[in-house]
Every structure is written in structure tokens, then in C-alpha cells.
């Protein structure tokens, strides 16, 4: 492919993608019958993870490395803004058989 053409395509793509600056997104994780769905999510630094607890039981989203610990009361949702890149395994303190993972890109 010619360099000029590559640049043109890049410019066109940028017209679509770059017009809107990368916005922080909200990523939803549903909790139903003691299961985090999806169990694994990917986010970018600055995004917000929202856990929607549909159970009648209190849960938590607690990072294995203790970097976060979010209380999730019954029938409520709670959120966490992720700022640090990395892979975070998390579990529920009350029901450690509930597990999930958040991967945060730079």
C-alpha cells in the first residue's frame, strides 16, 4: 500500500473515530443469583464500573489485592471509577465463591 493512501485512510478513519474525544465509559456488571455477569470486563483508565445487585443479599466487589472494596447492598447498584491500569481479580467478601475480573488498560 502506498504511503499516501495509508495516510488518507488514516485521516478518514480519524474523521469517524477522532472527532469524538475518547470518553469515559460506564461498564455494567449484573449480579443475579450470586453470579457476576459478565464475569470479566475490560475498561480504560477513567471508566466507571457499575455493579447492579439484583439479589436480595448484600454482596461486595472486593479486589484480591485490596485495591478496591465496594459494598453492594441488596437490590442496589454501586460504582467504582477505575484509574489504575492492571488486572484486578475480585470476589464477594460474604460469598467468596462469587468471582470476577476487571482489566484496566492505560
Amino acid at each position, binding site marked *: 500500500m502506498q504511503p499516501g493512501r495509508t495516510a488518507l485512510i488514516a485521516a478518514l478513519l480519524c474523521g469517524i473515530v477522532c472527532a469524538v474525544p475518547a470518553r469515559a465509559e460506564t461498564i455494567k456488571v449484573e449480579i443475579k443469583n*450470586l453470579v457476576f455477569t459478565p464475569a470479566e470486563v475490560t475498561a480504560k483508565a477513567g471508566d466507571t464500573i457499575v455493579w447492579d445487585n439484583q439479589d*436480595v443479599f448484600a454482596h461486595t466487589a472486593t479486589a484480591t489485592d485490596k485495591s478496591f472494596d465496594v459494598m453492594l447492598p441488596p437490590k442496589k447498584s454501586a460504582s467504582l471509577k477505575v484509574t489504575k491500569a492492571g488486572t484486578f481479580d475480585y470476589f464477594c467478601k*460474604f*460469598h467468596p*465463591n462469587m468471582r470476577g475480573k476487571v482489566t484496566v488498560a492505560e
Partner: protein
Amino acid sequence: MRVIIYAALAALALSPLPAAAQNAKPNDAQIAHIAYTAGAIDIDAAKQALKKSKNKEVRAFAENMVKDHTAVNKQALALVKKLKVTPQDNPTSQALAKQAKDKRAELAKLSGKAFDKAYVDNEVAYHKTVDNALETTLIPSASNAELKSLLETGLKIFQGHEQHAEHVDAMLK
């Protein structure tokens, strides 16, 4: 197979069950009663712990047992009402209740760290037994789909509590 499993559940209590009970597959009314009783027992045990323990982790665990089992039992009561099933007392429920009563009396004599340890150890053992009963007998025997589904949620709750109890147990050492 079922006879062995049912007998294993019955073996929770030291007193042997009548032979007839060991051969019978529990019906939904009995299953509902057993599941409700298993939850109520754990609520009573937790209430005893909340009266006696000063350990933060133990108390947090016990508080969660009260909340979770109250929530499950509330769902169970709503379901039996909807299904027009009257929970039926049975030898397994009676054996569970008898054994729990004995355990509470035993724990009542303890205090401080000895109580905490004995309570949490019993919680690990108790949840294991109930998990096993749910998995091998109660869930496969349940004929109503909604009851089966509630028992499956109950199993996940109990398994979660077992792991939580193990964590608390590890912290007490």
C-alpha cells in the same frame, strides 16, 4: 444411592432415624421444611454468636448469616404460599433441629476465644453438611422447578458461607 445420601443427611444427628424415613425420597413439602429449618438453625446460631462474641470478624460473619438466611427463608415462605404447599415436618428436619439444639447448649458453656473458635468451626462443618444434602438429595428430589431453582440459589449461598467461615476460621488462628 438415594438411601445412602438420605441416611448421610440423617447422620447429622447422632440418633438414628426410623428406617422408613431413610428409604423415602423427600417430597416438596418436606424439602421446603428441611431447607427452611436449615436456614432457621443458622440464624439461631448466629444470634447466639452475636450475644456472646466480641470478635469483629465473627460478629460480621454472624450478622451476614442472619441477613442472608432471613432473606432466603422469606423467599421460601413466599414460594410455598404461592405453590399452596404446607411445609411438612419430617425426621430429617427433626434431626437437624435436635442436633442444633445440642450444639447451642454446648456453645453456651464457652466464652471468649474458645466460643469464637467453636462457633466458626461448627459453621464450616454445618454448611458443608447442608451443601452436601442440597446437592445430593434436596435439589435432585425437588419436583417443582421454582423450588429447585430456589434450592440452587440456597446452595450457592451456603457454599459462599462455607468459604466465608473458612476465612474467618483462618483469621482466628
